[in-house]
């Protein structure tokens, strides 16, 4: 059954500043507190909160989902998981965690949160590996991903269509290799 807090998800979709501000007013303090309690700084809390909100936005853009628990519990669990991942990267996840399991949420909500965090981790990894490519590759790939047909990409970059196609494959080969050799590759496999 849809929770009344579904309105906040719609607010993200519509960039409804007043409602998004309400989300910050109501919940940011708790996320901040959770991060500060667990080896984090204020900037970490800000990043976690921001990224989780953006991840939720991306999720509902592609596939609407129904919120079946209060947003507070949903956000807290998503931020907690996200922060735990960050701590794992820093090898700090073995230290005692404080007040991590504050909410019990239903299985469906938990699955959505897992999905959201996974998608975000994948996007972060791709962004990181994309930065390792040369400028020419980045430019070509981004133009192509923006929806432009390869003929138009070739014109913009002042290269032939044939070379653009060949170059894209070279760039993708490099990117796929970088991703597959990364420590986080198993995320992409899921």
């Amino acid at each position, binding site marked *: 059954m849809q929770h009344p807090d579904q309105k906040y998800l719609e607010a993200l979709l519509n960039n409804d500043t007043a409602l998004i501000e309400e989300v910050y007013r109501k919940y940011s303090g708790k996320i901040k507190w959770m991060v500060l309690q667990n080896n984090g700084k204020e900037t970490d809390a800000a990043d976690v909160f921001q990224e989780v909100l953006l991840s939720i936005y991306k999720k509902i853009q592609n596939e609407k989902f129904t919120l079946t628990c209060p947003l507070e519990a949903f956000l807290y669990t998503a931020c907690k998981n996200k922060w735990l991942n960050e701590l794992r990267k820093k090898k700090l996840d073995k230290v005692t965690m404080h007040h991590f399991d504050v909410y019990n949420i239903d299985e469906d909500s938990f699955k959505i949160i897992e999905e959201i965090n996974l998608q975000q981790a994948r996007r972060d990894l791709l962004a990181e590996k994309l930065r390792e490519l040369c400028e020419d590759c980045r430019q070509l790939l981004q133009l192509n991903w*923006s929806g432009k047909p390869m003929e138009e990409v070739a014109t913009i970059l002042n290269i032939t269509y044939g070379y653009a196609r060949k170059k894209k494959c070279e760039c993708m080969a490099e990117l796929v290799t970088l991703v597959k050799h990364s420590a986080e590759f198993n995320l992409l496999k899921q």
Partner: protein
Amino acid sequence: MEPWFQKIEDYLNGQMSSNEQLLFETEMAKNEALASAVTVYRQIETDMRQGKKYGGDENKLRQTISNLNALYFKNETRQNIANLPVKETNPFKQTTPDAPPVKALNQGKLNWGYKVAIAAGITGVMAFGITMYLKNKPANSSSEENTITDTLNKKNKPDTFFFKQNSSKDAIVQNDTIIVRPDKNGKNIEVANLTTATLFAANFKPDAAPVEKEGPLEKAFVLYENKKYIEAIVAINEADINIVTRGEEDEQKFSLFYTAYYKALSYMATDHIQSAIPELKNAIVNSPDNTYLVKARWYLSLAYIKTGELKKAHVFLEQLANNHTHSSYQTKAQQLKEQLKQIK
């Protein structure tokens, strides 16, 4: 490059004949590395194309979130949390009506969190009391420019607030700083100790939006006028500065000033003083005329009072107190300077 990548591209884009497709899929079934490369390739294409597809809307949301992050994390944390023991600021102890049951919480003595909350409560009650008092004042005692500071200093007038030191025999003297007001019999009664917070609350009133609102900041001015300060900040940030730079020279100067000035006032109205200070400095640098320069200095001095940087506040109050061209601000600054002396 591995020879397969051109084929992967063709396969995923549906550019293979059915025979080629069959051969490719057969090869994938035998070749694990190829199958894995296709999976990763497809995932990258899907993720990146989705990101680009919604890029425009996402950028707008990013801007909103970025603004709110600045308001709710960086400043709030720096001011209210960083200086307090982290374990004592558990926000779950605050009652939120729609919060689900919470487990594993610290239960203990009155802590810093509560003390801060109580202090905030007292300040709130005081502010409410002052507001109610002002609302109930006779109409002829108020004006557009009338702030509590104005009335605080009209000594010996029983129908107004005023600041007075140790003057009432009924007042309880604490730290030599008391705000007293007359009761219905004209007798002075204490309402609160004077602190930087109470001085700020008594003096801060957001300036009116410009009468002429047309231009890139029009939306922001309307929001500001309707006290939608957060939205006003977002609207200012989103305003197309290129339109400003294409305007007349005077218009440009004003727009540049308004951007900083009204953002600062919106920050102050939402109690994000640290964010307001750099904006007010910008406003002072870009002030288009002497009136706005005076106003920006006034608000900057109030911001410094709120943050407890009294020496800095004093510098700006001194400038205002010596400025004879704007007598109302001159008077207010002189009075505020005197009141600041009472704060230890």
